[in-house]
């Protein structure tokens, strides 16, 4: 990939013409200059990684860091379907299409100078599927029957059944060194020194992790691609406060960050347009969206049913009562029409987000904007819909009511997320206009996800999901996950279940697209969620860094190609 890799700077760009020009200049400069080695980049991150071991790491920050130290057999391309070789040179499907044969590179060395061999790949698979390890990607390996070596540089993955995602399943997960982890019992790996001092094959070597401060990575001198990486050091600086992040970007103490708050990103844009800072704002589709989830079934009744009939969906589905407020689709539609997504986006993200109308995320290949039913902002129509449902303000107290029931509910969101608090406050005000009373409650996420959501003890909640690359909506809406913390709305549809199942199993791209569209249509009509917006990934990067490439896969995908011209180096490395 590196050799092919080009000099494309994908910048889904922001505003006026001025910045366009700047962006073009940056690009040309990059083509004219020859990349030179040297220099360091400081990356600002807002949370500390949870571990630097690819088998146990869970947070996004960890994956970003790990992605520089460790490598996979192959990495996914921007189209999210094809792959580029990494540790594997090439691969072929066997004749029966039930196995993939990987030809590995033979010039790869671990950071401690041991040779990378096929044994490492087999060993990694064994650990990944070991229940004691608790690797969070274990689901990818479900269909893999066995993995074995043919010789030092050939590995075969044998599958139990054919599927659309065989290659993706095989290459998922970073390869870990056998010679180090072999001696550690699997149940102790999450505590082992390896989590703090990882050894990989990647372009950067781990040097040091100072808790709450920094993580140092240095150039892997023995990297198998010649002249790569260009940079001598990558330093992750942990800055939990958004203003520090912003401040240090402006003062050029850090060069890069993708964790800026929307408000501070606005400032970056303003300064860039004024030519008063060297920090370039880049806004590309991200991997997150925000939504309001409605509780569609009555919480008290649910608790009773659960107690009486146990947690099996077949047993309890006939006894569940709809939520007195949100059980009706018309009410949910009315609420969706009363919420002005554009206003929310404008205020919380300065317009840098896409209003979202259906369940399929924008970055997915299957995303089809026409499949979604749009509930455009229209408070009058919302009021009318509500009155059709019997919700009228009969006692003129400014709050809708129906049979002595008052339209008053609690809007939950998790503690510590300022943007969601802001969304909640705006939504509260917007719903007030259609005479609906809300109170906002911030709850600790452990409590929210650990108790309130799984027990369905709530009215409505503002949350966001990170989008995976697999596009599987089963955890959120499929009846088999009805008792999981993710499926808290209580949405149930036999049709959805079968569509999603079919979608997951088929290899036919047309069926995939068809079912996906149908699902979009169904869910955007049924509205278990009111999708608010699809977030942009707000990246700020100092313009002295050349050849950085960002897309929907992430912001640190080609760090080994980044380079800094000599006169632009700040630190005396």
């Amino acid at each position, binding site marked *: 990939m590196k050799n092919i890799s080009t000099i494309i700077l994908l910048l889904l760009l922001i505003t006026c013409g001025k910045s366009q020009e700047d962006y073009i200049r940056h690009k040309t400069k990059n083509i004219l200059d020859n990349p030179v080695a040297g220099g360091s980049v400081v990356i600002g991150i807002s949370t500390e990684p949870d571990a630097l071991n690819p088998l146990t790491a869970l947070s996004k920050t960890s994956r970003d860091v790990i992605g520089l130290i460790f490598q996979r057999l192959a990495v996914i391309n921007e189209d999210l379907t094809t792959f580029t070789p990494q540790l594997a040179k090439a691969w072929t499907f066997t004749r029966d299409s039930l196995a993939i044969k990987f030809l590995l590179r033979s010039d790869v060395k671990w950071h401690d100078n041991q040779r990378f061999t096929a044994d490492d790949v087999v060993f990694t698979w064994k650990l990944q599927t070991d229940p004691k390890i608790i690797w969070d990607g274990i689901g990818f390996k479900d269909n893999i029957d066995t993995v074995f070596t043919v010789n030092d540089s050939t590995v075969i993955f044998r599958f139990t059944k054919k599927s659309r995602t065989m290659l993706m399943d095989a290459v998922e997960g970073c390869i870990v060194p056998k010679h180090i982890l072999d001696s550690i019992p699997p149940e102790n790996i999450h505590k082992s020194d390896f989590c703090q001092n990882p050894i990989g094959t990647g372009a950067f070597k781990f040097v040091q992790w100072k808790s709450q401060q920094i993580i140092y990575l240095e150039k892997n001198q023995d990297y198998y691609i010649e002249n790569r990486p260009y940079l001598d050091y990558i330093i992750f600086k942990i800055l939990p406060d*958004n*203003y520090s992040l*912003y*401040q240090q970007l402006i003062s050029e103490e850090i060069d890069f960050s993708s964790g800026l*708050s929307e*408000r*501070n990103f*606005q*400032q970056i844009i303003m300064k860039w347009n004024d030519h008063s800072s060297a920090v370039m704002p880049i806004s590309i589709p991200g991997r997150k969206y925000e939504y309001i989830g409605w509780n569609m079934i009555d919480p008290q009744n649910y608790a009773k049913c659960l107690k009486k009939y146990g947690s099996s969906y077949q047993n309890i589905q006939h006894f569940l009562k709809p939520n007195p407020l949100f059980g009706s689709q018309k009410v949910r539609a009315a609420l969706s029409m009363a919420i002005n997504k554009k*206003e929310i986006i*404008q*205020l919380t993200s300065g317009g840098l987000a896409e209003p979202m109308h259906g369940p399929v995320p924008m970055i997915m290949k299957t995303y089809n904007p026409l499949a979604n039913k749009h509930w455009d902002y229209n408070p009058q129509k919302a009021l009318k819909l509500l009155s059709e449902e019997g919700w009228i303000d009969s006692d003129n107290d400014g709050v809708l009511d129906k049979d002595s029931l008052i339209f008053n509910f609690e809007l939950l969101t998790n*503690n*510590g997320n*300022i943007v969601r*608090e*802001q969304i*909640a*406050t*705006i939504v*509260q*005000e917007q719903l007030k206009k259609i005479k609906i009373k809300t*109170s*906002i*409650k*911030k*709850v*600790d996420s*452990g*409590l929210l996800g650990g108790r309130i959501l799984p027990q369905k003890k709530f009215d409505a909640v503002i949350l966001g999901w990170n989008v995976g690359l697999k596009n599987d909506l089963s955890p959120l809406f499929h009846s088999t996950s009805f008792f999981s913390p993710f499926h808290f709305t209580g949405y149930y549809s036999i049709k959805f279940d079968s569509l999603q199942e079919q979608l997951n199993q088929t290899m036919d791209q047309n069926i995939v697209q068809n079912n996906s569209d149908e699902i979009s249509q169904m869910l955007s009509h049924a509205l278990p969620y009111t999708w608010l917006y699809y977030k942009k990934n707000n990246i700020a990067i100092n313009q002295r860094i050349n050849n950085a490439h960002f897309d929907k896969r992430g912001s640190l995908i080609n760090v080994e190609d980044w380079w800094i011209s000599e006169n632009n180096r700040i630190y005396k490395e």
Partner: protein
Amino acid sequence: MNQDKLKILSEFFKKLWFNKSSRTGFILVLLVGLCALFAPFITDYQPNVQNLNQSLQPPGKEHLLGTDFFGRDLFTRIIYGARISLGISLFATFLSTILGVGIGIIAGYFGKIYDKIAMRIINLLLGFPKLPVFLIFAGLGGTSVKTLILFMSLFSWMELARISRAETMSVKTRPYIKSAIALGLRKRTIFLKYIIPNIIGPIIASATLLISSMILLEAALSFLGFGVQTPIASWGTILYQGKSELVNGWWISFFGGIVIVITVIGFNLLGDGLRIIFEPKSKS
């Protein structure tokens, strides 16, 4: 008899007024209190109504102290926030005064094991840094105003308990208490009619000082994101919101803090003044 009380009261105010610092304190507290009370008459804006295209306006003619993220008038929110902040602080002070005086009197009057236990608890709690403790207990589950007040009062009664204990111990040795005991009066009567009226002065003074530390505590806790829920404003939540807008709207943090400082200064001066009035010893 009413006239007598009136006389005592006017005497008291004369003393309060005579002392320059307690006069200043009294005026400041009165000013903030009146603002909170007559908030709707002072400002034309509503505290919680958003005006999204007026987001983050700097202080100016239209908005005296600027607007916040949601385009709400900051001045209005500060005035209305005074109701919440003062309300919480006063109520928490009230609770901890009752708790502290109760424990202090029992410890001071009965002595022995009661005193020992009370003093152990007091010393232990006095040594506790409130914020980390609050973090451990409240950080886990989020908080409501109720738990906030409860926490604030549970961790603030010690100073009052110590004062009322010391005062009770000195009052206890006075002959009139002995006479009252010898008369076979009930404990309740002795506490309510003989002890409390005679130790109330220092208690009022330190309760006034406690209000100011309660205001600061409320601000600190709200600043960490606990406490009053949006959209209701308290001074602490104004600071909390101001923190994330520091780059774009310094005035939120600035004025949110200034009003706390003014009020706390007011209560501190008033409390010091009362202390001087009630404690003739420190008059020198």
